[in-house]
């Protein structure tokens, strides 16, 4: 039981591109970022819906997570983007996360999910980002600084 890698939730990508057509738009800012502990064992092939099992929440960071429209400094939008970077690769990126006045214990990873979707897949999972260690706050800012290569990439020309 542990989180070892980051990744996109593949089944939901397929369901966007086939007859299921779940309505994914990764630039929506009603998507939420939720924290999870290292007790979780993600399955990127079969996990499709966000749930609160092993969730990390606390003061300043409600259960269910924070909407991307309010997860950047000052309660502003992280403004997710989809671009080609580098050539042949889809890069999903957004502004750094900075949520003030939180008290959280042992967050190991974050998961993004489509909070606005209800059917055919409610709360469809998008991506898990593994922090690689447990992080905590006590009445302080919880922040994530993304790499220059973005939150996640899909190489279409491997």
């Amino acid at each position, binding site marked *: 039981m542990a989180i070892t890698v980051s990744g996109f939730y593949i089944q939901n990508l397929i369901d966007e591109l086939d007859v299921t057509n779940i309505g994914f738009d990764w630039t929506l800012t009603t998507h939420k970022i939720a924290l999870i502990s290292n007790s979780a064992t993600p399955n990127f092939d079969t996990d499709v819906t966000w749930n609160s099992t092993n969730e990390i929440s606390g003061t300043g960071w409600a259960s269910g997570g924070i909407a991307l429209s309010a997860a950047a*400094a000052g309660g502003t939008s992280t403004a997710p*983007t989809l671009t080609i970077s580098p050539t042949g690769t889809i890069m999903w990126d957004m502004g750094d996360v900075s949520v003030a006045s939180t008290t959280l214990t042992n967050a190991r990873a974050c998961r993004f999910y489509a909070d606005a979707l209800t059917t055919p897949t409610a709360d469809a999972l998008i991506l898990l980002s593994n922090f690689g260690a447990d992080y905590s706050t006590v009445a302080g*800012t919880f922040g994530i*600084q*993304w790499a220059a290569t973005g939150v996640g990439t899909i190489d279409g020309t491997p």
Partner: protein
Amino acid sequence: MAEQTYGELAAERVAALGRARLADPGEHFPYKREAARAAIEDDTAPAKVWVWDPRNGLVPRDRPTADFLPEAVADATEAYVTAQAAYLADPGAGTKTGYEAARDALVAARQVHRRGRATHGVAADEVRF
């Protein structure tokens, strides 16, 4: 009622989704530029960033709000959100070109900022060894 083609219905769906998104109070329209400016100037949410130290491993370093949201990225974000709203309100070649240009400018601003800083990762205000 005449049946509509898949293409016609897809276009209607996209337009309807755009209108719904613009009207959603949970979305980011308009961008809260003043809140961003205040957060940067007042440094209301400083945080620690974990930096690798050869002697002590990961150690925290205080970083200002601007390390998470510099003015250049806030400016580019405002332009991106504005262009996105214009496209959603009136999807077409002209608004799409504007949207893509603003998006590319935002991505470039982020990359310039991130390549110029020494760290990335998770920031937390308390260290628990």
